[in-house]
């Protein structure tokens, strides 16, 4: 009897424990486990949406250019935002060089997300009407991967030289066990061009009606090709791609209120590619807080380049508070609330200026063509503008670079234009103390530091000179 009692107890006990054992299989409810991540094409589309959003990584280039070049100065309300970068005291560490190392992580994050989606595109189920979208999404992702690689190449390498060993790592698969080394610049460029060409081959033609500046398509892809070709010094291709974009007529140059409206997101004139910020002051907030505190202001040097009376860019780009402080008006006002503006990554005027520069710099310069494009941009911006002609390449290039300074101010170009052309940063005395007024041409700080986080975690990584 006694033993029966014990046996029963044991039996009950074991039953309880066995049923508990099942309870140990607890699956997450709050996130998607990897095996469920990509089941249908809808999930691929969600991933692609994320990738397009993650190209907000470009904002880091825009900010780094503002801080390190001569287009901005520390604003009246600056309490240290970007100050160390501005004073050329930045290092590879996130605390002191966060604004110039951020692009590295942001671009590779995007590249990894793309590499996680790409192998699944052909594996998922799709509804019949979605079938053609497989290739379109594949092309968009390939293109974004290329553009991202270009972003890191431009930030963290010396001027383009195919044999330069310190390029950046090429990442085409997602594998967390990798500790990648730097490829040569030539290898990186080859991968960028391959991805862009593969993408272009998969994309259908676009028209004014089907064009959208928030996803990759054939035309804005060509615009990036033009930008990259100019960077590479491949002027003939730069002209070809820029002509492809301009010639499509999809985004003509505009002027007057149509131009001003670009910057308040009232219209999407001229924009070839845009990252949207529906309710996030990510762009405007870098320069001026929502409350109106000015962190980063346009430099006196930049301000002085505009003829305030005739150049519509002055009022579109630069604002002045009642107290007399200047602020970046370009990213200040929007219908969605102050500072909540979209990131304009690529505009048609850049294509004109690329073509102008390529025509001026190519093996047999075409100064007439260069002047024509430059004049087209100026005519759209300056009331009563009289066309200019050039007799020397030098004059033309100087004028074009100066026009890029004015036209593309604070859009992420100035630092890279100076670097590309081996020019120094020379700030006005009123913009900076003598200690950080000049960054001599070819100074190591033109090549931004590889972030400390990469250096610690990756024994195969080589830091740039000087850091």
């Amino acid at each position: 009897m006694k033993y029966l009692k014990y046996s029963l107890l044991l039996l009950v006990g074991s039953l309880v424990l066995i049923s508990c054992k099942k309870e140990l299989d607890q699956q997450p409810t709050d996130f998607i486990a990897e095996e469920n991540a990509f089941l249908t094409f809808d999930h691929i589309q969600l991933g692609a949406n994320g990738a397009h959003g993650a190209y907000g990584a470009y904002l880091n280039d825009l900010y780094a250019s503002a801080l390190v070049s001569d287009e901005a100065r520390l604003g009246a309300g600056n309490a240290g935002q970007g100050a160390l970068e501005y004073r050329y005291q930045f290092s590879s560490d996130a605390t002191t060089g966060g604004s110039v190392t951020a692009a590295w992580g942001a671009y590779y994050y995007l590249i990894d997300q793309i590499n996680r989606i790409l192998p699944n595109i052909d594996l998922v189920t799709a509804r019949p009407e979605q079938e053609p979208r497989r290739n379109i999404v594949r092309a968009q992702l390939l293109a974004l991967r290329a553009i991202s690689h270009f972003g890191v190449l431009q930030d963290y390498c010396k001027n383009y030289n195919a044999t330069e060993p310190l390029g950046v790592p090429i990442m085409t698969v997602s594998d967390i066990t990798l500790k990648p080394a730097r490829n040569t610049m030539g290898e990186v460029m080859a991968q960028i061009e391959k991805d862009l060409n593969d993408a272009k081959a998969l994309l259908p033609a676009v028209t004014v009606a089907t064009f959208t500046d928030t996803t990759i398509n054939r035309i804005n892809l060509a615009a990036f090709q033009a930008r990259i070709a100019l960077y590479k010094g491949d002027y003939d291709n730069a002209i070809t791609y820029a002509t492809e974009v301009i010639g499509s007529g999809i985004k003509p140059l505009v002027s007057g209120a149509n131009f001003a409206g670009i910057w308040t997101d009232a219209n999407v004139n001229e924009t070839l590619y845009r990252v949207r910020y529906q309710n996030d002051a990510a762009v405007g907030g870098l320069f001026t807080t929502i409350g109106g505190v000015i962190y980063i202001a346009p430099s006196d040097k930049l301000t002085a380049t505009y003829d305030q009376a005739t150049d519509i860019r002055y009022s579109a780009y630069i604002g002045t508070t009642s107290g007399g402080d200047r602020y970046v008006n370009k990213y200040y006002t929007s219908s969605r609330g102050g500072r909540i503006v979209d990131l304009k990554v690529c505009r048609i005027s850049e294509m004109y200026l690329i073509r102008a520069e390529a025509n001026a710099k190519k093996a047999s310069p075409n100064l007439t063509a260069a002047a024509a494009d430059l004049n087209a941009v100026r005519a759209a911006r300056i009331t009563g503008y009289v066309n200019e002609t050039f007799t020397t390449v030098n004059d033309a290039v100087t004028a074009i670079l100066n026009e890029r300074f004015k036209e593309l101010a604070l859009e992420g170009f100035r630092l890279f234009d100076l670097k590309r052309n081996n020019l120094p940063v020379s700030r006005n005395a009123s913009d900076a103390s003598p200690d950080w007024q000049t960054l001599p041409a070819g100074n190591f700080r033109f090549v931004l530091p590889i972030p400390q986080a990469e250096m610690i975690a990756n024994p195969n990584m080589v830091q740039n000179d000087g850091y």
Partner: protein
Amino acid sequence: MRKLLALVAAFAFFSLNVWAQRTLTGKVTDENGAPLSNVSVVVKGTSTGTVTKTDGTFSLSVPAGARELEISSLGFAAQTIAIGSGSNYNVSLVSSTKDLNEVVVTGITRVRRSQFAGAASKIDARQIVDRPVGSFDQILQGRAPGVLSLTGSGQPGTASTLIIRGSGSVQGGSQPLYIVDGIPVEAGVFQALNPNDFASIDVLRDAATAALYGSRGSAGVVVVTTKRGTGGKMKLSYSGQMGIKSKPDFAFRPMTTAELLKAQEQYGSIVGGSSNNNSLLTGWYLSKNNPRYATLNATQQAAADRALDSISQINTNWEDYFFRPGNFSNHQITLSGGTGKTRIFSSLGLYNEEGTTDRTDMKRVTFRNNVDYADDKFSLSVSSNLGYVKRNFQQTTQTNGVANPFLATNIALPYKKVFNPDGTYAAGAGFPDLGATQLDLTYWDENYNDQIKATLGFTATYNLTENVSVALTSGIDFRETQNTNYGSQLAYTRRISSSITGRAGFQSESISRFLTSNIRPSVTFKKVFAERHDFEFSAIGEYIQENAKAFNLTGFGIDPRTPNTPAAIQVGNAANQLFIQAGGSKFRTAIASGLALARYTFDGKYTLTGSIRRDGSSKLSEDNRWQNFYAVGAIWDMTKESFMDNIRAINVMRIKLSYGSAGNHNNFPSNYLYQARFATGNYSGLTTQVANYPGNPDARWETIYTTNLGIDFEIVNRRIYGDINLYNRITKDLFVSRRLPPSVGGFGWQIDVNAGELGNKGVEWNLNFDVIRNRNLTWTLFTNGSYNKNELLSLGGEEPYESGTSFLKEGLPLGSHYEVKWGGVDAATGQPLYYDLDGKLTTTYAASNSVTDFGTWEAPWKGGFGTSLRYKGFDFSVLFSWQEGATKVDNLEFFVENPVGFLGTGQFNQSADLKFWTKPGDVVNTPSPLYGVNFSSKLIHDASFLRFRDVTLSYTLPESTTAKLKFISNVKFYVQGTNLFIWTKWRGMDPEAGAVNINLSEFPNPRAFTGGLNITF
């Protein structure tokens, strides 16, 4: 006296359960014949018992089968007397201190200390009750050896950081396991538990004890035992306590207006340039020395002079506005009693505390009911506590944000006014008006939570035979916290907001719910063979499930005429853009265990204990889920040996050795760390899906192996007593972070891998000395403390990495600060100097020059000491607590001694100690305003402290007086001071408060003066 006895006997008869019971009476005295009150008289082996009255008498109904009475009292050796045929028993107890720790409650089992191989310390009710803190774990500082206890915040009711025997995990936590009456309770949320209901807190530190909790106890276990009903007539008692709380003193002082204007002028005169025209930099902008001044015409110059003069007249001491006197009160009514087989303890507590800054308080109502039943076969203990807590909060503390009052008070400009002429706060945009803006926000907004917590548990035991018993313990710990955050449209920061939702005001409601349930069946076999072989064996099964769910909702457009209600939330639409935001989370984890425990004692001299268990955790993949843990222990009671008989100086000497393993289920780095995960997000209205954690499918248990060698002793006529423990804890399969290079997935991509090994070894002491001990006067000195050496033994091939302000590298303790070494200021140029890795001074700040030469925040030395003095009815006790060898980063110093980033903007106040370089030859510690200040070792300071933690003076009315007050049996008055002083090199508000590694201007611990009254009717 006889009359009284008769009365007692009569009372006893009234409550008598006549059949099968009889009533025993008696009197308990000390060795000198003085009656002893509150002595526990219990039928051995049951929970039937009572306590003696003030005259030392007792009466107790006992079951017919009762054989022995156990008579015990704090400070006296327990006695067991056989129950014979008589009914009156007079007992004389011998004074002793060893019984203070006689029974170690491990939560699962109650073990006699002499048979307990582990290291544990007991904190008894006397030290727990009537402390003016809202979270009981705050009591532990300085009272338990081996415990690093930091009271993280002066916010009423905030839990402490408790680390037992050093951090044993890197990526997981080091939070101990908390058990209340055998039921695991949620760590860190103790506001709804009333410490006045506690009978004792046991802190279990070693492997043998932790092995009982195998999978969960590796970080130590804190076991709370609540009070049970005492036998006999229901006794009603009341205790009440009131007091005030005030801001602590600290070394640091912000500048006055005069000082700040002077510093601003000095700054401008050196920097010049754009600062000449920075109108915010008042002291320079309006200065006659500013070149700008010469360019003004006479009228403008006069205006500037007037402006400067009027600003100079304002000198706001922001401390007066950000701090307020706090107060404290606590009331409790207790009923305790029992008849026959049943005893009841019931208490109702009301706690009220107002913090030392506006909008911080805590109110608590607790209702506890503990019921015990026991007969000769069956016993049942039911414990239940229901608590309701309401707490009010500031917008934020412990952040470097201007909404934090404890940052604002130090950086707000002294020449700004607090109020507008119309009486409203003089808030303004941006930083210059941050002081008044903070106060305005505090005035308009609300942030509070309501918490309901129910902890219910029972243990039922049935004796199958004389030697075999079965038991079932089960219970739940349930907590629901509802948080409300109301942002008023009328607050200045909202009125000027440029975003639609910002202007609209918000109402944010969130609910979080946490439920732990457990069930633990057990069988115990216990037998003494041949009178000398004492054997005990238990088999235990356990299943614990944790469920958590949180839900939150934020709505906008709250009309200030209907403030602070979810009813005022507007329905969002495309036109008003006031879309409601909602979110939440949930998870469930489970653990199943099987456990066998055995103990064998030979002749009272030698004891061997052993345990083995197998645990499965839902937090690991099926392949790695199950793990075995084991522990063994041995005890040698030396004083029981015959050769000790002649050594009179040694009364007790026990040597204990144990070794065992334990796991860390509650502190896994995440609940699903083996799975890669994707999450959905939003890109401007489009849904996105991104990978956000790569997952480590190989994750397995992190296991701590502890060796413990301990000695318990009582020597010199039991005047010197205590225990000393030596231990070595090694964490194997330590989770360390593998930082993936950003190039494989972006910043912050990491997985936790079982690679490292971590060591903690040290010594703990608990020493007491009764300097004087006689009938009227007892004077005791005591000290407890520990030294712990924490060292990361191995990273298992992973790369060293930065974690917060620290760096993880083999050979270093956890929490080692990682910074560039500060080299001072170049006296010739005013440039900041830093050391590079070769030890050379350089003007270039490079993070890659960071080193780990600055110690760790985790103090190796810590403890407490004090004294207690008892003279007749007076009782005086003092406790100091201390820690030594800790360093901490002072983030506040970065703000308040920073010419470029802060002073030069003209928007912030600075420390009165600020002395920056102005001319060649200046030997100062802050660089010239031409050069920025970086985060460097300059900010790392000694956070050691000695705290005057507690002083209490109480007086208990003598019996002769209470005897005259017919309805009152005991009256005690007391006054108490808490946190009265602190001795520290730390300059900030409180070296303990806030994050353990860095000072982010957290709410400092207040100083408290309280007084109280306890009456038993």
